[in-house]
C-alpha cells in the first residue's frame, strides 16, 4: 500500500528529475515551442517541493491535490494547468484514503489523464504529453510501475516522427516532425520518478 509519505517522495523525486533535465527539456522546447518548458517546470516543481515541506497533507489525495494547485498557480505556461490538472484530478480520484493500492493509483491516474485530454482537447498521436501518459496508465493497469516507466519513455520517443496538432508546436505544421515532444518527455520524467520512488521504498 502507498501512503502520503510515498506521494511526497514521488513529488520530491520529480522535482529532482525535472531539475536535472531542465536544460534538455528547454532545448527540446526551443526546437518546436517557446523554449521555456524546462524552466517553467523547474519553477513549478520547486514550488511543489517547497509547499510539501511546509504543509504535510496526511493522505495521498491531499498531497497530489496540493501539488496540482501549486503548479497551476506558479507556472506561467500551459504546462502549469496541464500538469496541475493531472495531479489534482488524480488526487481527487484517490479521495480521503490514508493508504491506496497500486491498482487505486492506476485508476486515479487514468482519471487525471482523461481530465488533461479534456482540458487540452488532445488525443494520443497529437504529439503531446498524452503520448507518454496514455501508454503509461495502460501499462500501470496491472500495478506494474516499472512497466509504466518503460511505456512512458517509449511513448515520448515515439513522438519524434509525429506532426504536432496541439499547442504552439502545431503552428509549425510539418516542421514539427523530427523533434521529440518536450511535454511527452517531461511526462516520462514524472512516471519515471514514480517508479524510482517505488523501487526506493522496496529497497
Amino acid at each position, binding site marked *: 500500500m502507498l501512503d502520503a509519505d510515498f506521494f511526497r517522495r514521488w513529488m520530491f523525486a520529480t522535482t529532482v528529475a525535472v531539475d536535472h533535465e531542465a536544460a534538455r527539456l528547454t532545448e527540446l522546447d526551443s526546437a518546436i515551442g517557446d523554449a521555456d518548458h524546462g524552466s517553467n517546470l523547474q519553477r513549478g516543481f520547486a514550488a511543489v517541493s517547497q509547499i510539501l515541506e511546509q504543509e504535510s497533507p496526511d493522505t495521498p489525495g491531499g498531497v497530489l491535490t496540493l501539488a496540482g494547485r501549486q503548479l497551476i498557480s506558479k507556472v506561467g505556461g*500551459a504546462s502549469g494547468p496541464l500538469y496541475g490538472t493531472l495531479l*489534482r484530478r488524480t488526487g481527487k480520484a484517490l479521495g480521503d484514503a490514508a493508504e491506496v493500492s497500486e491498482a487505486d493509483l492506476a485508476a486515479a491516474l487514468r482519471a487525471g489523464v482523461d481530465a488533461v485530454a479534456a482540458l487540452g482537447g488532445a488525443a494520443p498521436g497529437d504529439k503531446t504529453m498524452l503520448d507518454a501518459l496514455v501508454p503509461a496508465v495502460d501499462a500501470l493497469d496491472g500495478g506494474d510501475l516499472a512497466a509504466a516507466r518503460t511505456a512512458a519513455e517509449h511513448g515520448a520517443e515515439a513522438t519524434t516522427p509525429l506532426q504536432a496538432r496541439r499547442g504552439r508546436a502545431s503552428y509549425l505544421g510539418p516542421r514539427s516532425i523530427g523533434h521529440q515532444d518536450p511535454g511527452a518527455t517531461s511526462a516520462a520524467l514524472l512516471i519515471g520518478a514514480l517508479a524510482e520512488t517505488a523501487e526506493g521504498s522496496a529497497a
Partner: protein
Amino acid sequence: MTAPDKAVGIVLVSHSREVAESVARLAAGLAGGGTLAPVAAAGGTEDGGLGTSSELISAAAASVDRGAGVAVLVDLGSAVLTVKSLLAEGDELPDGTRLVDAPFVEGAVAAVVSASAGADLDAVVAAASEAYTYRKE
C-alpha cells in the same frame, strides 16, 4: 449610457500585461461616455513576463464582480487552459464566471459595450461570441 448597479464584470487575460491593459483601454474608450461596466486586465505573469498568472486572473475577477457574473476573455494557449482549470477548481473565481469563446480584441469591445449598456451575462457572452461572425474579407 449608464450601467446598472449590478453590471457584468469583464476580465481580459493575455500573455502580455501591455496587451491586456491596452485592449482594456481600447474597449473602455469605444464604450464611450456614461457609466462603464467594470473591466480588469490580467496580463502576463506576476513579475511582468510573458505568460499567464492564475493569481492575477483570480484577483481581476474578484475586483470586477458586482454579483451579475463575470465574463472572461482570453488570448492563447496557457491563458485558455489556466482559466478552464480555475473554473474546474470551483472556488477560485466568483459565482457566475464564464469563459467566453470570442476573438480577444473584437470580443472585448463587444463585451464592454454591451455590459456598460446593462446587458446581462448571457447577452454579454452572446455579443462577444458574435464578433467571430464579422468577416474581414
